[in-house]
């Protein structure tokens, strides 16, 4: 359970930073707060970037974009993937076949090249990024939820309720959703980690919203600077956002795995 507590603590801290960003950041992330490429000092805790923006302030505000991206992915996967998977598993038949074939095809398409192709048609903005994340978040979830529903509907109490004349909606509300809730929640946490990673990746290859500094976009600009490896700039410009992304994703992963273990006792002896 150590992993769970450590994970939750990190997520909570990032949340606090995101909420109180304007209070924590000494400068606006967009303002030209100092001379370009300054090393850390008392005014600029993590120095400044190539155009003189304060890196620490960017780091503080970047947490907002990352959490937003994670939330978009989690909500998209749970709402779209969850309901499609439930529908496919519960109603079965033709709907199931069509939906699952769609999922297979969608998973077989190389996602990032597809995202790049889409992005070429839209200007980079936070809304575009979030839409793309939601668009690509659901397929795996749908498949997972479907297989879980298939096994749940075989249970005897479901059979009994059906015999007693329970309607489909009642069955879903009364039995299916409560049984699925732990899995949906665990998956939401893990997909949240995927969302954080995906946003950072899109920003890294230049699809980020230039007016919304995210951790991925900071990496993009840092690596774009030719001297990044050859000066000490990497220590305060490259490493902090990279570490922030990694630690947040690790916290989400460990939290997800720990939740999985807690609710699925068969996994316990494995670890």
């Amino acid at each position, binding site marked *: 359970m150590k992993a769970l507590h450590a994970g939750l603590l990190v997520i909570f801290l990032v949340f606090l930073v995101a909420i109180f960003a304007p209070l924590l950041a000494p400068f606006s992330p967009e303002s030209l707060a100092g001379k370009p490429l300054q090393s850390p000092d008392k005014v600029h805790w993590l120095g400044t970037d190539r155009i003189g923006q304060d890196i620490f302030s960017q780091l503080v505000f970047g947490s907002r974009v990352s959490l937003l991206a994670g939330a978009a992915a989690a909500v998209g996967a749970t709402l779209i993937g969850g309901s499609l998977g439930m529908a496919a598993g519960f109603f079965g038949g033709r709907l199931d076949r069509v939906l699952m074939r769609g999922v297979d095809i969608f998973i*077989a398409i190389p996602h990032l090249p597809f995202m790049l192709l889409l992005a070429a048609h839209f200007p980079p903005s936070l809304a575009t990024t979030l839409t793309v994340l939601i668009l690509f978040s659901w397929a795996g979830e749908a498949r997972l939820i479907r297989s879980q529903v298939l096994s749940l509907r075989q249970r005897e109490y479901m059979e009994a309720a059906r015999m007693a004349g329970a309607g489909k909606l009642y069955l879903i509300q009364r039995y299916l959703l409560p049984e699925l809730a732990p899995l949906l929640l665990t998956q939401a946490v893990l997909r949240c980690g995927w969302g954080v990673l995906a946003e950072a990746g899109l920003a890294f290859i230049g699809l980020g919203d230039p007016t919304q500094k995210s951790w991925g976009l900071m990496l993009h600009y840092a690596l774009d600077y030719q001297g990044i490896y050859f000066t000490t700039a990497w220590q305060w410009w490259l490493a902090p956002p990279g570490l922030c992304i990694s630690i947040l994703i690790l916290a989400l992963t460990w939290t997800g795995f720990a939740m999985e273990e807690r609710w699925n006792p068969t996994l316990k002896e494995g670890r």
Partner: protein
Amino acid sequence: MSCSCEKGSVRLRRQLAYLAGRAGEYAITLLVILAINFALPRLLPGDSFAYITGSTSSADYAGALDAHSQKVLRAYYGLDLSLQEQFVLYLSQLAVGDLGYSHFFKVSVNQLIAERLPWSMLLVVTGVFVALVVGVALGVLSAWRRSGNMDRGLWALLTALRSVPSFFLGSLLLLIFSVHWNLFPLFGARDMTLIYPTALERMEDILHHLTLPALTLAMGEVTGKYLLTRAAMLDTLREEYIMFSRARGFSDTAVMFRHALPNALIPVITHTGMRLGVMMGGMIFVESLFGYPGMGKLFVDAMSARDLQVLQSGFLMTSVVMVVMNLALDLVYVRLDPRVEVTKP
């Protein structure tokens, strides 16, 4: 015909039917991709001529092209035809292998892809191979010593590794191995200033350039394979036939590698196929970080230049490569799993 022979032919027929089914699925996937490629620039609101020529709006090219050139270019791209005619034109061009012309690189897309694809294949195949070997080996090790210190340590280390974005991990590797220790080159796939006296030296240089990018790509994939191998091994080790093997007095190593591993590998192979799409993303990150001249770098360059012909063809060719690699994995799968049935696993 003897009994075992007949069984063999039934099995072969099942395997062939399974492979045919998979090939059918891949064909549908490719058709969907063709449809996306065709529809995206044409059905989105806005001027498809602007999209195709890489301009942002009609005002953008109006100054650069007079009415006559515009007309000629529109006819060249078939934009003066009806949608149905355009679709037929698109398919017939693809059928003869014409992927169009890149307005940014000023060469045919065929030539671009012919130059870039081999590098990406080298990178991705090496990455998959390294990730599979290392992931499976560590997974077996972890399952063997389950709940021990090494198991816990490996689990923590590898889940941590998975959380580091490949482009950040790769930049750290560059910093340590290329800048600090000067062991590996900073970018590229080979030394452009050298003329190699022998084929061996050429190969050495290529491997030298390949090491860090392939390692970065593999590190992102190793955790999934490790976790899956470990879980599958733990499952398999509980089976009765394993207990029977132990009871018959086989050594631990024989039980692990000869009896348990082949069955535990089946889900790992399936997973590897499903991850290929994600790996194409990893390829894009790694290539653009290491300046590796493959398809991924081409994608990013084409995107910033809004070169739609290149993006579309790259998307298509990446999918074709994925399909080919998936078919190769299906062949492995069919050999590993004697229970292969006509329906999907």
